[in-house]
């Protein structure tokens, strides 16, 4: 679900920021840092060597190679870039195509908005990768995309290279529209019950199977030499579902209640696909074993619930309990505000569930990377992985931690110091533009109000023409 975003005043500077990466060279050396690798412990006074956007070395080597840009992180902490497994930022227009019960023809990747300031705000909170999801208005929603928060780049450079695309499913109150409905006079949409939600999903997959069969039959007959066949129509609604059946697209399903979680697992088994993640999954602790056996991940909130009936039976121990039973668990934001302190959200699992610091950190780094199938590239500080890193001034699981620098592919996309230093100039530019506009408006007003010159006298329209006078027309050519 989405809740209203608190209006947080982030400087106007963010609204028109030039990317910093242009100035960042190929070789970067971060030194004197406390490095939380996630996979192999903490390195005190450590250094990270970055070449061409990848982590080339991690250790205690204190000497930067010649020509490297050195970032001195004395007294600071470095963690892998945070991965938000449930985000709706960077989307132009609504994240819900709410009309159809199955809206799988729509694709978030078509409408990425690289100019959404929430990308930059997320970066300021240490997020480097986000799973951009369609909303939860439909049992089967739209296609989803994993992006890197490369602020300043064009839309086509945001998608995480090689990450499998996904599709949003949604169970329960939102798709059956328990809490809202169309305006009077508009017919209500099917489904209106949890049974209906299941039926919509099953029906869609039956159609997808049939669609795939039609296509296969056509290709087979065509290659057998039958050239007069009318090809089957392409159906953008069913194609992503065929991809799900073929294992080429991940299912990320919004859910709350234990019964609906089990329902979707049964449907998935019937059609032979996997649920990649259960999102929200607030009652996941009740069916953690079943989720674990299915191989699905759980991506949940730390302590956010009771915003509707199906979200009441939630406990802050959910993440820890699911993890204990073998589910790969991540903590997500579902909110452009919460995304800015996912480190604190993760830290709550240490209080509720007594997870270790490293286990908590994993919930926003390596675990979401596993859930999104990108753990070979990101999620920990290991040689060969992308240099997506966050440098904090304090232990990242402390409430005092503030991200100082955020790097993606070894390039600095957020630098708190530079950000703060840039604000006066931007403020000045803004004032100058306002002044310029005001001045132009005043001049225009003056111009418009200028008394119009009256003609010296009204011309006598009945006066006969003077032949040959400039601008007048006379009969007869041929000169």
């Amino acid at each position, binding site marked *: 679900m989405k809740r209203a975003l608190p209006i947080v005043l982030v400087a106007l500077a963010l609204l*028109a920021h030039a990317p910093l990466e242009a100035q960042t060279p190929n070789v970067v050396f971060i030194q004197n840092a406390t490095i939380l690798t996630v996979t192999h412990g903490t390195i005190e006074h450590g250094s990270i060597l970055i070449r061409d956007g990848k982590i080339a070395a991690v250790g205690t080597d204190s000497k930067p190679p010649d020509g490297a840009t050195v970032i001195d992180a004395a007294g600071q902490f470095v963690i892998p870039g945070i991965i938000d497994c449930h985000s709706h930022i960077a*989307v*132009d*227009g*609504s*994240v*819900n*195509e*709410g*009309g*159809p*019960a199955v*809206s799988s*023809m*729509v694709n978030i990747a*078509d*409408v990425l*908005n690289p*100019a959404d300031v929430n990308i930059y705000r997320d970066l300021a909170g240490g997020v480097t990768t986000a799973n951009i999801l*369609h909303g939860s208005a439909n049992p089967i929603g*739209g296609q989803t995309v994993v992006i890197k928060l490369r602020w300043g780049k064009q*839309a*086509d450079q945001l998608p995480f290279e090689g990450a499998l695309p996904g599709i949003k499913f949604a169970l329960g109150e939102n798709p059956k529209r328990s809490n809202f409905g169309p305006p009077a006079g*508009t*017919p209500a*949409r099917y489904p209106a019950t949890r049974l209906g939600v299941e039926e919509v999903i099953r029906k869609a997959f039956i159609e997808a199977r049939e669609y795939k069969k039609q296509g296969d039959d056509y290709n087979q007959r065509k290659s057998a030499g039958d050239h*007069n066949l009318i*090809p089957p*129509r*392409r*159906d*953008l*609604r069913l194609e992503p579902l065929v991809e799900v059946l073929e294992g080429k697209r991940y299912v990320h399903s919004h859910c709350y209640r234990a019964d609906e979680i089990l329902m979707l697992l049964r449907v998935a088994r019937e059609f032979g696909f996997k649920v990649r993640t259960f999102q929200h999954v607030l009652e996941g602790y009740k069916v953690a074993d079943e989720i674990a056996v299915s191989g699905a991940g759980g991506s949940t909130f730390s302590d956010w619930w009771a915003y509707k009936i199906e979200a009441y039976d939630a406990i802050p121990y959910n993440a820890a309990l699911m993890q204990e039973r073998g589910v790969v668990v991540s903590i997500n934001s579902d909110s452009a505000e919460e995304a800015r302190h996912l480190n604190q959200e993760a830290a709550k699992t240490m209080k509720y569930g007594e997870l270790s610091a490293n286990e908590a950190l994993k919930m926003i780094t390596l675990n979401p990377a596993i859930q999104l199938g990108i753990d070979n590239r990101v999620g920990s500080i290991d040689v060969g992985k992308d240099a997506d890193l966050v440098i904090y001034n304090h232990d990242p699981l402390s409430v005092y931690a503030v991200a100082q620098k955020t790097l993606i592919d070894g390039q600095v996309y957020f630098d708190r110091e530079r950000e703060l230093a840039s604000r006066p100039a931007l403020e000045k*530019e*803004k004032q100058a*533009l*306002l002044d*310029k*506009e005001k001045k132009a*408006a005043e001049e225009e007003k003056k111009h418009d109000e200028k008394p*119009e010159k009256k*003609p010296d006298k*009204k*011309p006598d*329209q*009945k*006066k*006969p*023409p003077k032949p040959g*006078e*400039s*601008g*007048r*027309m*006379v*009969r*007869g*050519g*041929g*000169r």
Partner: protein
Amino acid sequence: MKFWSNRGRAPLITIGACMVASVVWAHAARGEGGEPRYFAITNARIVLVSGPTIENGTVVVAKGLIQAVGASVAIPPEAWVIDGKGLTVYPGLIDAGTDLGLPKPEESTGAGHGRPAAPPTGEAASGPEDRPGATPWRVAADELKVDDKRIASWRNAGFTSALILPDGGIFPGQGSVINLAGERAGDSVVKPAAAFPVSLKPIGGFFSFPGSLMGTVAYVRQVFLDAHWYAQAEPLYEANSKKVERLPYDRTERAVSNSLSSNQIVLLPANNSVQILRALGLRDEWKISGVLQGGQQAYAVADILAGKKIPVLVSLKWPERAKDGDPEAQETLRDLRLRDLAPSTPAVLAKAGVKFAFYSDGLPLPKDIFKNLRKSLAAGLTADLALRAFTLDAAEILGVGDRMGSIEPGKIANVIVTDGEIFNEKTKVKHVFVDGHWFEVHEETTPDKPGEKKPERHSHVNLPEADAGVAR
């Protein structure tokens, strides 16, 4: 004429011969031979656009076409002659996107241009198969009403042609190139099926498809796929009708298929740089001869447009501070920058080598068009290139470059005569020829305000304004 300045106050430069000519055309039925069809403008500065300007020459107009142009050309004996001393002849201007002559849709949905989103469908649409907001078979020319007063007002300002675009829905219909004169719609239409506008504005709200931008993109994509499917399936069916099931009748896919397979340009709305790059991607994916419509932030991506050789119809409705907005409201630097830089787009496009034309985009009066154009001139666009955008480049983008857009023998005689540099605020348009029909330009006494009814005028010899020139 309406907008240069001094509205309603300037003297009527009307003389006997002109009145005779005007009135003759106003009252004589066509074909009776009363209206002159041969003209010569002599001793004038002639801006050809297609070639170097002739400082002192003659243009001969004969039976709707430009017959000759040059420093010294023979004038047909039957021609009416305008002594063009001190005057300048230009090709008529083209407004590359307007609703001139098109009836206003009945009621507003409140958003955007105040147009209804789509013809009523009764039920909520649940997907592309319901074809919401699709009337691609409509042709603007078929709905043209020549009694729209704005036609004369545009013509008096120097516009002789326009691309008129239907509105409403995602596939509103086909745009037509018209000339801005004619007694009947049929007289005006130059190219009925010239452009195929596609809107990406969601029309469904939360409860009906398409209710999101991604929904409209998916919808257009599916309809284009269906249209291609139809183009492929139809001949196969015709050849095998005894062996295969008949094809369903789908008016939308047939009309879209027809438009895509003809030489119509597809207009893709895109104003800011994100929308522009998105449209470029869709254009490549859909393999359409796409032309961008809007383009106000194209200054940020001009090189990409140049590299891909994408023409742009630039909206002259520059973004402005909201008129009734909260004066205390905080504006973003991004908006301020856009407002500051948008008028520089034409100059940047010209420098990058992108072909572009201008369109009025709902601006209420021609004078607003020129006022906004002058912002672009101030931002570095040369008058020459502005003129080219308004004439030959517009004609070429719209696929009528062989008919109009320059002063060349054989082109349609859409010609204007001014008393100075055309984009100068003080300059007045003195004569307008549309399809070789002569109109003398008069000051209008009061500008028409939208929705304001003016008393009917009666035709009279001494009547000023458009009535004198155009038959109704």
